[in-house]
């Protein structure tokens, strides 16, 4: 959300940043494909550290990895190395950026979408079309917590015998791994991140989460949820690589929905630090004049 403030107020700055990022990305695509795969392989080859009770130790700072070596952007001049587009759109204009991103973010193959029961299709469409308005705002756009599983893997994990603490830039999630059950349903209070308990299946942590408030969305294109939602996450550490995937069951869905897999690599720098994030402050809703969003 702070990024939105930056885009809204300092377009030139963000354009410049995009140019630099694009250049970096372009360099990565040019020669980094093998490096990225090699780094991932090296991270996975390290022995998985275990805690005294024999379970894998997830503690550490986990950084996002992106596959490199994909298609070379059309705007990259291979000969000169120049990258002419400052925004990731057809023409580099901010208008096209919004429209391109709006189309691209919704280009989700059929089987990767949650299948809602038909009585909820209109609501998904309404949410999607009005996601950046007060009619059906995406909770994330309003600086609300993303909820589970939308928030995905954390930046940092602190593990004790009793719990895993997932630290996100603006949120904390606790997963109890001491064998306790979920509270009985009559005691549920309905929260953004729910109540999470984890058990081990070999080296995989299986996290069950219930007791949601039903306000969180599964994803950007209007994928809402109900308080009936139950999430099962499977998190596995192999060497210095952490993989995560979640399955959602909800009474408003025709069938369980499984997220895409996420992968993180351990930051092995013993002096690594995480900077304090800027607070999320919603400043855009009152200034948005179209329903286009990207």
């Amino acid at each position: 959300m702070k990024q939105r403030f930056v885009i809204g107020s300092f377009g030139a700055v963000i354009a410049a940043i995009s140019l630099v990022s694009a250049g970096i990305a372009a360099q990565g695509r040019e020669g980094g494909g093998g490096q990225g795969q090699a780094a991932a392989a090296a991270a996975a080859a390290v022995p998985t550290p275990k805690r005294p009770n024999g379970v894998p130790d997830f503690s550490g700072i986990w950084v996002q990895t992106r596959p490199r070596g994909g298609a070379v952007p059309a705007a990259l001049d291979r000969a000169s190395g120049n990258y002419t587009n400052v925004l990731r759109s057809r023409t580099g204009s901010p208008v096209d950026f919004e429209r391109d991103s709006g189309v691209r973010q919704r280009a989700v193959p059929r089987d990767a979408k949650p299948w809602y029961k038909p009585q909820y299709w209109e609501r998904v469409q309404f949410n999607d079309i009005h996601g950046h308005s007060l009619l059906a705002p995406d909770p994330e756009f309003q600086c609300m917590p993303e909820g589970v599983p939308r928030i995905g893997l954390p930046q940092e994990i602190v593990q004790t015998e009793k719990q895993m603490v997932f630290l996100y830039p603006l949120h904390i999630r606790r997963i109890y791994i001491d064998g306790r059950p979920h509270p009985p349903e009559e005691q549920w209070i309905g929260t953004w991140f729910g109540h999470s308990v984890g058990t081990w299946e070999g080296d995989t942590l299986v996290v069950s989460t219930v007791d949601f408030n039903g306000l969180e969305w599964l994803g950007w294109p209007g994928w809402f949820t109900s308080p009936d939602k139950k999430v099962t996450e499977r998190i596995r550490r192999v060497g210095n690589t952490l993989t995560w995937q979640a399955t959602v069951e909800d009474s408003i869905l025709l069938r369980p929905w499984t997220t895409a897999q996420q992968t993180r690599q351990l930051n092995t720098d013993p002096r690594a630090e995480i900077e304090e994030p800027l607070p999320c402050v919603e400043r855009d809703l009152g200034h948005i004049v179209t329903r286009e969003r990207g």
Partner: protein
Amino acid sequence: MRMQRCGIAIGVAVTLAGLTLHAQAPDLKRVLHDMANSLGMLRSVQELDSLMTVEYWGTGTMRDVGPRTVGPEVQLKSYYAQIAYDFPGMRVDMTRATGTPQREIQVVSGTFAWNEGDKIGGGLDPAWGNAVPAMDRVSDRLLQLWTTPFGVVKAAVAAGDRTKVTVEAGAVVVTFPLANGTPGPTVNMVTGELNGTPVKVTLNRDHRPERVEVRYRDRVFVTTYSGYADLNEADYKADIFLPARVVQTVDGQTVLDLTIQKSNTYNPYVIMPVPEAVQKAAAK
């Protein structure tokens, strides 16, 4: 004066040379790119085909197309279509001014076809309408899907080196057989007798499909598209272009004359899961 004449002569020669080149061999890859790009399908700096689903609303007239004949013309009070090119699937919800059934919701999804009761999505949930199998309509409905403007681009790409480009009477013409393409984010799926059906697409000056001709079951289906525009609502434009007018004939007789008033081309949430009853009926 002599220089001026010389200049004109050179200009004419260059123009003629250009026309000759254009008439001889338009580059297939360039033509397919221009088709997709002119419809607004290509997005991001990588120019990826990013169009997976669309929906549009219209009114007009239609005739039911039987195996050998066509029915009487009826007014359409409403016509609402959803298309998912990635699987593929298509749902048409139309309400006739006269005749029965007045409202009909026709669906095709992959190798299944059915009609939904009085509700979109009927038959998927016990509390939500019903579905009646219509398996004999799979090919007809898939044909409608693949002959839409976006459909012919995707189908032409999927046909690979069987797609040809020529020039006829100054217009670029793309021909290809409907074929099963390589599975991927967008799957070109045709079934049974539809496989191999020849399609001929004539482009307008903006590289957009203007006329699509298909010879299928010994009949000639011709669909003409005109009035291309971004038909999304004014505050929801996407730079994706649909024809405002669609006219389809079968053996020269008009069977659909549609005016599209509105669209949503932002890959809307459109799914066509196959109801269990339809799957069971198809398995018998």
